[in-house]
Each structure stands twice: as C-alpha cells, then as structure tokens.
C-alpha cells in the first residue's frame, strides 16, 4: 500500500487489507522498492494537490517504476480513486480521468453492475450489483470511441455505474489492463469492508490483493 504526498485514504486501505485477511505493508512513494510484497494497492487522495492533472505528477515518483515492473511481471495492482488516476496517467490502464460533468464533487453510495467475470470480483456473475461509495470531483473516466469495443470484448470493463453519476464514457467505473492483473476504479472498496459502513462489497476487490 503506497503512500504518495497527498494520499488520504492510505490508513483506510491498510485497515481494509487487514480486514480481508491480508498483511498490510506501508510503502513510501520516494523509495523504488516494493519490499517483496505480493500485491500493490495505490490509495485515494489528492497526490501533489491534483496539480496539472490528477495523478499526472505522482506517476513520475520513484516507486512507480517498480510498480510498472511488478505489473509487467503479472503482479496484482489495484488503484482506487487517485490511485486509478495515477495508473491511467502512467499508461498502466487505458483511458484518463476528467472532471465530473456535473461540475460538482460527488460523495455518496453508488450501485455498480458487474460486466465481466474476473478474479477481482470473486464469484459475482455478470449482471450482479454491488454497492460501494464514491467521493470525487474528477471521476469521469474518458476513453476515445476508438478501441472501446476491444476493451469490452477483452473483458477489461469490469464494472459500470448503474446510472450515470459523473459523465464517465459508457458509465464505466472499473477497468483492467489487457492481462487483467492491473485494476482501477473511482469508487472506494476500502470504505466498504465493514457492515457498520453500510456495505461489505468492497471486500471483493481488496480481497483479491490479500489472496495474491
């Protein structure tokens, strides 16, 4: 679990990993060393104050070189919110995150519909719905029309918002790379791992890391 300058969900992410039975290892963006972990989590927040574009500066931190190598070797990498933005800017995931079309910061639970079977979603079948909160101002995933069908055909689009919440292309909420080992989403599974918080559906995505 990597802390960047301006990460703010790193403590929640560490706890979520423990909740699903994993051993959480805090990592620092300034060290190009993953300390032999079995999976990597990039948490939410506002790295580098969201200056330039969200995630655009964090992608050049020393640890991101190590993350790219880890991902290329097939390691499981999950990016949540700002972590998703960083992975897109780094080219490890398709698309880019842009400002919400509503021009408002949105903070509420959303329903997400499973689009493809994936280890990231446990045994949830296509069409199943999960509930996870979102909290973002720049959460509209954008991808050019060209290539969108290929992502779908390759099973890289894992979740769609049940209704349009932020203007994302085709309501896409969660995507993977071509190999499927790198996954990113704007909703916050680490905030949905305890019944006290209203949903435990987030255990699916975080649980994939603990199983690695």
């Amino acid at each position, binding site marked *: 679990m990597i802390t960047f300058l301006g990460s703010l969900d790193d403590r929640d992410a560490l706890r979520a990993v423990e909740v699903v039975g994993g051993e959480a290892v805090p990592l620092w963006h300034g060290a190009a060393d993953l300390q032999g972990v079995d999976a990597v989590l990039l948490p939410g927040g506002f790295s580098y104050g969201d200056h*330039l*574009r969200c995630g*655009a500066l964090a992608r*050049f931190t020393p640890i991101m070189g190590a993350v790219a190598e880890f991902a290329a070797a097939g390691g499981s990498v999950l990016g949540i919110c700002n972590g998703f933005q960083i992975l897109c*800017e780094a080219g490890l995931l398709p*698309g*880019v995150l*842009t*400002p*919400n*079309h509503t*021009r408002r910061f949105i903070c509420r639970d959303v329903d997400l519909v499973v689009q493809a079977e994936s280890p990231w979603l446990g045994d949830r079948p296509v069409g199943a719905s999960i509930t996870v909160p979102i909290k973002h101002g720049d959460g*509209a995933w*954008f*991808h*050019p029309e060209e290539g969108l069908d290929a992502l779908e055909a390759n099973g890289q689009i894992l979740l769609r918002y049940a209704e349009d919440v932020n*203007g994302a292309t085709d309501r896409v909420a969660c995507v993977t790379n071509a190999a499927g080992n790198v996954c990113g989403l704007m909703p916050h599974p680490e905030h949905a791992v305890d019944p006290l918080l209203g949903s435990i559906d987030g255990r699916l995505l975080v649980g994939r890391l603990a199983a690695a």
Partner: protein
Amino acid sequence: MRVTVLVRPKTGIRDPQGEAIRGSLAGLGYPVSEVSAGRIFDLEVDTDDPAEAERVGRETAGRVLANELIEGFEVVVG
C-alpha cells in the same frame, strides 16, 4: 530561452471548466456562446539553441504537460 506551451481541450471533449465560465459570462450579459479553458506553461529552458528549446518544449508537453487523449498542445519558442 523562453518556450511557451499552450494546452487546449480537444474538440468534442467535455470541458466543465469552460462551461462554468461560459455560464458566468452569460449571466453577466456578455454575448459569449462558447468558452474553452486551457492552460499556458512558460518554460525557461537552459539553452541558446532554438531547436533544442523546441525539442524540450515538445517532449515535456507530450510526456507531462498535456494528456493527448483529451488535450492538444502547441509549442512557441521565443
């Protein structure tokens, strides 16, 4: 040498910032039907060679300053 990089949203890409500004200008009574909001970066590149300055401008624009999925850029030397 001074290098200026102008970054603009690509045509057809939703631009909430421009839309918000357009709404305010319209509210003030200005006859403005569209606003596109981009960014200007003024770089002081440590070279006296215009070609090298342009190369640095283009490389930083393509790699860092703009995301070409959604933005286009223009590099002006001097």
